[in-house]
């Protein structure tokens, strides 16, 4: 199972890279996005057992693939931060150079000095602990900057598909951040001296989180069409609820001031039109109510309060904001 997943991650990584490169050539994607994908693909490739062992055998240096995969991971995170325009570019570059520099300096005393191993769950010596800590701290800090910067802002974007895609990106980053935090805390707390049951628990949790992060990462690159289709049921429910509120407001208004012109029923399949028609009916109804109140005609209890609420809605609101304001009126 693990082997299938490992191959799957490598294939996914390179698929995204090729697609992003094609989009880049068409001018539909940025350089940062495809470089981020390319370094991620290189990272998972070098983490793959066969490539890991093959490359180390070829170079004759123990665990050099580990260093390579970490450098690719650092570059992957760096280009993600560039894609989200997080902070100062100079600081970002300094962070990357420092992290890679430290990894290269520590390597001979850490993974380079220990026997060739595919198991990176627990550090073999203090050098490996530092080696891993550098990577986790750099990645953790950069991901935190992305999460608290532009990425979170995009969650408030007007376009629902952008919000949904950003949610997936945020979920990816949160899972990664948790994964890094668990490992970092575990190592700092003297991971190698923990009982076996805890080691297994942390190892299993890390594997599940890594898998989830890769799947979410891949999903964040899905085409816009996928997100539009994903949004559909959510949008339908949201619109149906909006329509229900508008209908009850319109009916309440009609009970207070019966209007002559009733909206046509467009059916649930055309929710947008129904929402529009109900909105117009409510605005027409407000005018009827104004006329009644203006002429001092007797009106039912609550009519004046409703009229005040309806007239209090700013005239310059966009249609969506107007509908939201109408839905917020208490009947």
């Amino acid at each position: 199972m693990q082997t299938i997943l490992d191959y799957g991650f490598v294939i996914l990584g390179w698929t995204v890279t090729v697609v992003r490169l094609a989009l880049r050539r068409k001018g539909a994607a940025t350089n940062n996005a495809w470089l981020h994908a390319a370094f991620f693909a290189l990272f998972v490739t070098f983490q793959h057992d066969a490539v890991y062992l093959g490359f180390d055998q070829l170079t004759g240096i123990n665990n050099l693939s580990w260093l390579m995969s970490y450098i690719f991971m650092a570059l992957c995170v760096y280009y993600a931060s560039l894609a989200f325009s997080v902070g100062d570019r100079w600081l970002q570059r300094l962070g990357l150079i420092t992290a890679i520099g430290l990894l290269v300096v520590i390597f001979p005393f850490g993974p380079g000095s220990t026997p060739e191993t595919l198991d990176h769950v627990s550090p073999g010596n203090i050098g490996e602990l530092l080696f891993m800590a550098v990577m986790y701290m750099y990645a953790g800090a950069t991901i935190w900057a992305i999460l608290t910067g532009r990425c979170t802002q995009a969650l408030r974007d007007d376009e629902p598909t952008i919000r949904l895609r950003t949610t997936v990106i945020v979920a990816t980053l949160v899972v990664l951040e948790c994964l890094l935090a668990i490992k970092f805390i575990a190592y700092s707390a003297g991971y190698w001296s923990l009982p076996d049951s805890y080691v297994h628990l942390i190892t299993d949790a890390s594997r599940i989180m890594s898998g989830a992060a890769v799947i979410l990462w891949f999903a964040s690159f899905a085409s816009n069409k996928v997100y539009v289709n994903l949004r559909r049921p959510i949008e339908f429910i949201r619109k149906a609820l909006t329509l229900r509120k508008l209908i009850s407001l319109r009916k309440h208004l009609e009970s207070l001031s019966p209007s002559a012109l009733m909206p046509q029923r467009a059916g649930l399949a055309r929710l947008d039109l129904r929402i529009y028609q109900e909105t117009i009916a409510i605005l027409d109804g407000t005018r009827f109510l104004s006329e009644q109140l203006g002429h001092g005609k007797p009106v039912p209890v609550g009519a004046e309060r409703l009229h005040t609420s309806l007239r209090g809605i700013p005239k310059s609101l966009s249609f969506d904001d107007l509908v939201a304001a109408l839905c917020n009126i208490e009947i």
Partner: protein
Amino acid sequence: MRREQTQRVKALLDELDYDFSNFTLEGFADWLAQRRRRQIVFVPRSMPASVSGAWVKGHDKDYIFYEMDTPIVHQAHIQLHEMAHMLCGHPTVEVGPQQTQALLRHTGRIDSQALEPLLQRSVHSGQAEEEAESLTLFIQEQVFAHKKAEELYKTVPSDIASEFEDYFQKLEG
């Protein structure tokens, strides 16, 4: 609304032969003005509570007065509703140059004794109102079907400033 009436309005919409795939409210107003060979002037005003919009026939232009103290989407709906009266061929009140200028110059709420009756006279019968509203809804259905709904959320701009310029030029001339 009676079935024959609905069918008449539907037939009217079919006869329009209008390309809704490029719909804009302003473009629709221009198209209607060309079809009628009469300029349509849109005039935002604070209308009497009993009237949301009114179509008044001037000497060589049509004037559509519409309530400005209501959300923009409603203003646009009123404009379209008044245009629907034109398309339905409903009769309306005709005014001379002096009354036209009085209406245009009156920038406050239209409730003075002289002006309100004029606008009230342009209010159509129940049947005409139903027909116009029905045609408006059919047009809006077409607009939604052609994914141009956002065009119903903005009004035809009012060219009342140039209308005054015209008026003063005529006076000077």
